[in-house]
């Protein structure tokens, strides 16, 4: 899954499963924010949104699989080999922001029952509004 850039088609976000979350301006560059998003299955999820310097917004799960706390939005944003990343604020695992893939588990195992990678969600920014697509 990849995050879409703000130039993407407006039409995409009209389908089911897309949620308008907040104005782009509500997100500070290179700092995360949490959001509550209800998917088409009716389930409410906690999502971590990150606005990068180029205006791209990425969305991954807010749940940190290594601590079990809902904190991913509060990690430090950076890059590894040029790829945007976020580090868990608890035990410092590093995840790729676009895909949620765990790049560095910091010699730890995820909590029982949780996947090592983060789920990532498509994002579209249109008309200055951030939309997250949760199927």
């Amino acid at each position: 899954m990849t995050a879409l850039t703000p130039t993407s088609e407006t039409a995409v976000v009209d389908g089911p499963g897309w949620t308008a979350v907040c104005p782009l301006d509500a997100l500070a560059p290179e700092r995360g924010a949490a959001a509550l998003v209800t998917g088409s299955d009716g389930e409410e999820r906690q999502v971590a949104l990150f606005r990068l310097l180029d205006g791209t917004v990425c969305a991954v799960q807010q749940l940190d699989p290594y601590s079990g706390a809902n904190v991913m939005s509060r990690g430090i944003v950076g890059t590894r080999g040029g790829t945007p990343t976020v580090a868990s604020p608890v035990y410092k695992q590093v995840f790729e922001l676009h895909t949620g893939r765990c790049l560095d588990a910091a010699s730890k195992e995820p909590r029982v029952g949780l996947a090592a990678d983060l789920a990532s969600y498509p994002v579209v920014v249109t008309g200055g509004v951030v939309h997250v697509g949760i199927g």
Partner: protein
Amino acid sequence: MVAQRFVEALRARDAAGDWRVTVFAEEPRKPYDRVGLTRYFEVRDAEELTLGDPALWDDPLVDLHRDCKVEAIDREARTVTDRLGRVHAYDELVLATGSSAAMPPIDGHDLPGVFVYRTIDDVAALRGWVEAKREAGHVETRGGVVERPVRGAVVGGGLLGLEAAGALKALGAQATVIQFGTHLMDVQIDLGGGHALKRLINDKGISVRTDTATKSIRPHRRTGHVGRMDFADGGRLDVDVVVMATGVRPRDELARAAGLEVGERGGAVVDLTCRTADEHVWAIGEVACIEGRCLGLVAPGNTMAEVVADRLLGGGATFPGADTATKLKLSGVDVASFGDAHGRTEKSVEIVWADPLRGIYSKLVMADDARTLLGGVFVGDATPYASLRPMLGAELPGDPSAFLLPEGTGGAPALELPDDANVCSCNNVSAGTIRGAVTEHDCTDVAGVKACTRAGTTCGACLPLVTKLTKAELTKAGVEVSTALCEHFELSRAQLFDAVRVADLHTFSEIIARFGRVPEGATDAGRGCDICKPTVASVLASLGNGHILAGEQATLQDTNDHMLANMQKDGTYSVVPRMPGGEVTPEGLIVVGQVAKDFGLYTKITGGQRIDMFGARVEQLPEIWRRLVDAGFESGHAYGKSLRTVKSCVGSTWCRYGVQDSVGMAVELELRYRGLRSPHKLKLGVSGCARECAEARGKDVGVIATDKGWNVYVGGNGGQTPKHAQLLAENLSSEELLRTIDRFLMLYIRTADRLQRTAPWVEEYEGGLEAIREVVIEDSLGIGADLDAAMAQHVEGYEDEWKAVLEDPAKLARFGSFVNAPTTPDPALAYVPERGQKRPATADEVASGTADPELVSALTSPVLVAGPTLEVRA
């Protein structure tokens, strides 16, 4: 012990699985680390002493019979009979029965209260006895409780006796060591060393009587327990407990009964392959009499274990001779010796260096060429031991006396150890093997090298050297040990600090553009990471760049600094208002109590003399702080790599012994350095007299009042590697004290590594504490005024971070829980009650629905944050 090593070695090398091993152990537990026996008092858990990988005993080819003493060997039939009368056949038999503690034939040696010090059971019994005696000595009278100390004596002033005396002390008993010989540890060290050692032991509060023979031990009139010792010279000593540490006797009873030859002083006689006269019977460890003697150390025993394992697998190993180097394991008393410590080699020469004031005695024994090292003795400071011991038998470069002089004065040439030098004698690991772990097995740190080679995993005496070799090898291999901060910066923190200061840069973007490392093929250095961003944030803050959440700086902060609070395991935060010097008014306490109550926070007094409130949600933080700030509190910086607390004792204002106002000074220091960002956290302490109730010497800077002013100590540390702070300057006036601390802290801030506390910084600073003293006190670098100015700028520029946030809507906007629902609590939070407060529910409690939703408190007033409003399409 060595049986375990034997099984381990055999199983590791017997890939084909040709051998099945059965181990019969008299003791009821798995083989444990006898060398670490004294640690039992600390860990109180026999399991912790278990040797090696416990999986060894699950190996299908290994059987361990515990509590199963062997009673007899039938060499003819090749069987052994255990205490239950069961007969077991063997192809090869290895005796590793060790020794028992020797019991001198002194009258009364069998009285209750006389112990030996050999097994976990001995040590557990000794502890129980001392505790019971202490209980009995606790008498309540009408005038108050009287505590009679438990009086202990140790017979024998060797390695074991001193260790036992230390253990008695640790159990809270008095201890007197009775030594028959002329001086302590007379087997290992010479008379001069013995005198120095005695002073060190006395400093530990342990009495020593040398040249004393014990005539008899008498029972107490009433209890019949041990009560008194009578000495040959007519002296006597009242005692409640006696530990016998007069040597060991090989447990060769099985060998004797089986008709095997035993040595003059006991022990099953073996040849250099560790085989007895019976080709199917071997002996290893303390029970083996090899080259005419039994060896009471674990290292040669382990070597024998390896030899036999090798032989059974068809190898040709022989015992190479014993390394009898020893190091006393008594905390705070550094003693080590190796080789020909007594200078018995013909024509050998001795080089002695002694500093009675500092309690140091060191000696090298050299061959008559004055170059070849034959042995050494170190008392008081055994630092040279680690690097010199492996040079045994080799030529030392340069003047040997240079190796004895205190560090920094002598300029001893760097020792390049030959590959075959034995570095870890417990595990028989050579310098070459350690180097190989890095070069061939890709170990990249000390932990890796330990795991790979087993060096340093038994007594730990060789660890400094293992560390040094590992680092040197890594450097040679061009691996890490680089001081580069991370993939984004080649510079170390200290270099970066200077670069930023000199180039006068103020934002991360500028800094990474200017100093960042651009990887090959990339166009820029990227956007940093969780290592360099907080480091740059700290550097910028130390250089005075305004509020830590101003502009781009906010994106650099770790979550704790970003939320100005400490994140807890469930994602909530803790709140710690500053209470300078630990002082707080009753009104202040009431406010804190009320805030905690209103917001449903768990409260606790911290180890830093102030109050912590836990379980605050992001969206509650501003409102909590509004209440605290209104009541006059300010941020305690519990979240920052910055000044934490200045701990104080009550001092001269109330205490009858205080000689200065320690609380006043602590408050002054805390207000002076509050908010000062540094490479790691900073803690200070001020005690009002030498009794040191503020534990100031455990702090980065410790101040202790004297009747003439203040003494200042630096580089103390709690944490994982505790260190006492060392004296930097004495009898300072208050003004001199501030200037000294200002400069010390600024120098540290400018030159330390990322996350390096002051203790390791002082240690690694070139020239050590002495050089720091020159810079701070004598201004040897001429930067004193610069450091003073930097601190003055900090003091003037200080503002309360929380107050500033409350006044700035943009900063406040960060404190919403969700960007589209800023006042909604994290729905996953769950708590259960405990001791009248709440705590996070465990995963099981959440799953079983035991969590109490009431404990996720509502806000008490509308949130300050105005969340972005947005029409949301359904």
